[in-house]
């Protein structure tokens, strides 16, 4: 049956059958994925307009009152304001702190994911196209990076570098680029031998033009899938590093840091300080993963697990 539509196609497949269009159509067919995508979008929106939405600026020391510290959810402040999700040890409104934390977490995760995607796919693409020694060196590096647990590498790196947003992003990029490089190289090697690339070469197009104009669009499927999942990984990894005390500094608290703050008082029953930020983090990572998982099914059922 497949023989019927196996007629040779002269145009690049990307032009007739865009992975983005397929991804959107595939997502729409799964109610679970649609819900997850809506949740993702809502969380992203919340993060973007965060300060306008938050009941207070949790890092403005003038509005904090130590008398409001560790109030359970639903309590009222000395000034008559209701803390729907309670307050932390400094009398900070948890809801506001979470909205600000979400901003930080999403920024770090998405930024690190995007940079890793760019670095990784540029290296993977070039390796596939050039082959030879460059390819060997890049792939050895990829093997080495993937051979070690990402969390451990990031941990050691940050232990050497110290805390900071830029350093965390750097560490995350360093541990994540290899996944992209491997996937893109694999896809590019398949595409490279197809007719349309040969045609482009014979037309005398420049190398960068062929690489990024022709080869890259046809490696989009694995990139979309891995990119989605890696953003979720980056957010989770940042939270973990911050929880361990070697990620973001206390001046820029992400969700992970909020949870860490709640850890000390968890045993004494003040559960809300760590439970609510944790639930938010879980919702965020879970819905991104659901979307990513669906994308993988739609775009590339044979993609390696994880």
């Amino acid at each position, binding site marked *: 049956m497949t023989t019927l539509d196996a007629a040779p196609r002269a145009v690049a497949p990307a032009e007739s059958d865009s992975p983005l269009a397929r991804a959107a159509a595939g997502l729409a067919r799964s109610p679970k994925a649609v819900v997850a995508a809506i949740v993702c979008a809502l969380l992203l929106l919340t993060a973007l307009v965060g300060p306008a939405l938050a009941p207070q600026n949790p890092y403005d020391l003038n509005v904090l009152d130590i008398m409001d510290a560790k109030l359970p959810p639903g309590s009222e402040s000395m000034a008559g304001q209701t803390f729907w999700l309670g307050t932390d040890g400094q009398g900070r409104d948890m809801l506001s702190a979470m909205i600000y934390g979400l901003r930080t977490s999403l920024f770090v995760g998405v930024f690190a994911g995007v940079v890793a995607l760019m670095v990784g796919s540029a290296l993977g693409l070039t390796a596939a196209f050039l082959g030879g020694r460059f390819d060997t060196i890049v792939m050895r590096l990829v093997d080495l990076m993937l051979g070690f647990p990402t969390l451990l590498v990031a941990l050691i790196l940050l232990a050497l570098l110290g805390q900071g947003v830029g350093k965390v992003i750097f560490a995350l990029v360093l541990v994540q680029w290899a996944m992209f490089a491997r996937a893109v190289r694999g896809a590019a090697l398949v595409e490279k031998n197809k007719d349309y690339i040969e045609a482009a070469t014979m037309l005398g197009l420049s190398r960068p033009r062929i690489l990024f104009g022709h080869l890259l669009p046809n490696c989009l499927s694995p990139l979309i899938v891995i990119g989605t999942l890696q953003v979720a990984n980056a957010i989770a990894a940042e939270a973990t590093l911050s929880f361990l005390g070697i990620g973001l500094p206390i001046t820029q608290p992400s969700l992970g840091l909020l949870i860490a703050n709640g850890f000390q008082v968890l045993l004494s029953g003040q559960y809300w300080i760590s439970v609510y930020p944790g639930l938010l983090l879980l919702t965020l990572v879970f819905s991104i*993963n*659901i979307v990513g998982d669906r994308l993988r099914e739609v775009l590339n059922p044979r993609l390696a697990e994880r």
Partner: protein
Amino acid sequence: MTVFVIRRLLQSLVVLAATAAIVFVGVYAIGDPAEMLIAPDATPAERAQVEASLGLDRPLPAQFLTFVVNALHGDLGRSFVFNQPSISLILGRLPATLELAFVAIVIALALGIPLGLLAGLKPRSATDEAIMTGSILGFSLPNFWQGMMLIMIFSVWLGWLPSTGRGTTGTIFGVETSLATWDGLRHLILPAVNLALFKLALVIRLTRTGVRETMPLDFVKFARAKGLTERRIVLVHVLKTIMVPLVTVIGMEIGSLIAFGVVTETIFAWPGIGKLLIDSIMRLDRPVVVAYLLVVVSLFIVLNFTVDVLYSILDPRIRVGRGA
């Protein structure tokens, strides 16, 4: 077989050497080695003495040689905090970490393979959907938060299990382990479950994928045509086939279990090398960090090597192909 083993051994040594070089460059060459290796509260006299004994005035390759020679003698420096050789600190804590990882992997396999089979044999069914969504949830749960929730539910609210520490250990076959005593087991359950959940999700997915790829193969149909029971087909033909990729991935993942152990050990105050690592990073006890790295990398190499050998035992095609 021998050729295969020797080749793998050589590859392993190269990786170890590369790691040693990277660690050396990381700790000794970036920044001020003296600051990293000498306790922050050392007197200027102590500082000068250590700098001289480290030979910091000598060129970098010579320093690297000294580092390697010392490392080969098992000397990876002394801990500032504990004032002990860092390597013996690490080795002393290693059994607790390995025990935790071992129990976690057993939990992950014991639950993950049956669940993965269940999901893979009835793809797109409600059972499959539930198991797969559960496994995505398992991937998404932030490990540290999940650990805190376990403590909150089972220690604080229900009061069933202790929340921190390792408890009493006993010996089984000469190995000191928590598995030997009831108290030890009670302390082990929460951290082990916490560490296992992520891998459980992975084992489920791997098994399901394996089942779905194997079931349509001709040899499964042929096994049916022989009149074998569905039970034997799944438990022997399919399971043996998917064991090959499963063992490979799980072997690799033991490494990441040790890494994730850092988080679990921190939350549950489990006295393993992960907690030691975090404590040492916080206290700037860098010789311990260096020792941790080299020990863990060596561990990875041993693990990867074991996996490769196991792999060749499980897959007869490789065994004969490479052994000839």
